């Protein structure tokens, strides 16, 4: 085969390869969402975070507004601190915002849900959400149910 023809075929092959990578990026993965790098971080203290993980979604009214960026245990109070990065687009969250850990569906992944409060002041970089509601741990729920059931029998 002539050199020129081989050249064209190889170029074609490489272009198909790069198109495949691009298709994986755009169509399959969430690169659009991770390209939203501009964000600010706020944190919240919980009693129990259940199954929340780093990179879990942060939602407000079901809309993705950020992701959990870090989970640590406060060394003094021994309670978990969840840091989340919120996309800069959503920079008008009032300080009275409440955070709760919910589960998507019955067996789905856990996510952080924010509900807005009525305050005029706005949460900024480094602020802490005071009003939080911990994750429901199913064992604790069953334990409470059993306990209350037996106590009512007495």
């Amino acid at each position: 085969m002539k050199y020129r023809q081989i050249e064209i075929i190889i170029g074609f092959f490489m272009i198909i390869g790069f198109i495949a990578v691009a298709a994986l990026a755009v169509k399959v993965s969430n690169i659009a969402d991770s390209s939203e790098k501009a964000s600010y971080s706020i944190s919240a203290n919980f009693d129990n975070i259940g199954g929340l993980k780093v990179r879990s979604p942060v939602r407000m009214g079901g809309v993705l507004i950020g992701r959990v960026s870090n989970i640590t245990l406060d060394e003094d109070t021994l309670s978990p601190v969840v840091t989340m990065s919120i996309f800069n687009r959503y920079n008008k969250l009032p300080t009275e915002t409440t955070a709760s850990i919910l589960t998507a569906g019955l067996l789905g992944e856990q996510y952080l849900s924010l509900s807005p409060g009525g305050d005029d002041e706005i949460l900024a970089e480094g602020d802490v959400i005071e009003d939080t509601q911990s994750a429901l741990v199913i064992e604790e729920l069953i334990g409470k149910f059993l306990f209350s059931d037996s106590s009512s029998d007495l």
Partner: protein
Amino acid sequence: MIAYIQSLGTRVMETFATTGRAGKLLAGSILRIPTFKDIYLTYMQLYNIGVQSLLIIAVSGLFIGMVLGLQGYTTLIKFGAESALGPLVALSIVRELGPVVAALLFAGRAGSALTAEIGLMKATEQLASMEMMAVNPMHRIIAPRFFAGIIAMPLLAAIFSAVAIFGGGLVGVSWLGVDEGGFWSAMQSAVDWNNDVVNGIIKSIVFGFFVTWIAVFRGYDSVPTSEGISRSTTQTVVHASLAILALDFLLTALMFGDVV
């Protein structure tokens, strides 16, 4: 008894020597600054190694994706979770099946051909005559094939993954009636570019490196007889496949071990 222990020792020493020769080949061929000549030769090899593997990779990818879509659907529908078909197909292909199956096919299709080609060159004393003409066969023959393998493998794996996910979508959405919007959006929210796609590409680059290394080394190291070449070709496919699967476990443990 003593003869047995002796043969065991010989085998161990032989393994060391083989590893050493493989390292020497690596150092002699590609551990240097590529020249303009290298680029030209590599480009020509891309045709043999990359383009000619394209068809088998694409067709296998399509069928693997379709099977995955069908099997995933029959299991997920029992739980009413057919909306999870997209993430199932995409994650298993992008993370594991894409790089691994593409590399296995690559070892069978391109690796064996490389070994046989270089082995025959050795048997017909082409390599020796090149040395005679002061042309280093490491640079002229081994290095371009090596580079071409490392470049072609990730591209082939990406094509495999894209075609396979398309095949999974074809079966899931067009045939079994999973909701199209849900299929793609659930996939997009589950597949992470850095954690999943890039790690898959890194895997395929590592596989490409090792498969090509094994293939060119087995060819270069083959006994220059018809029997020797046939044995080397078999060894290439066997060793490359084992290396791919073992490396895949290692890389998966490193990449996804702590992501859970």
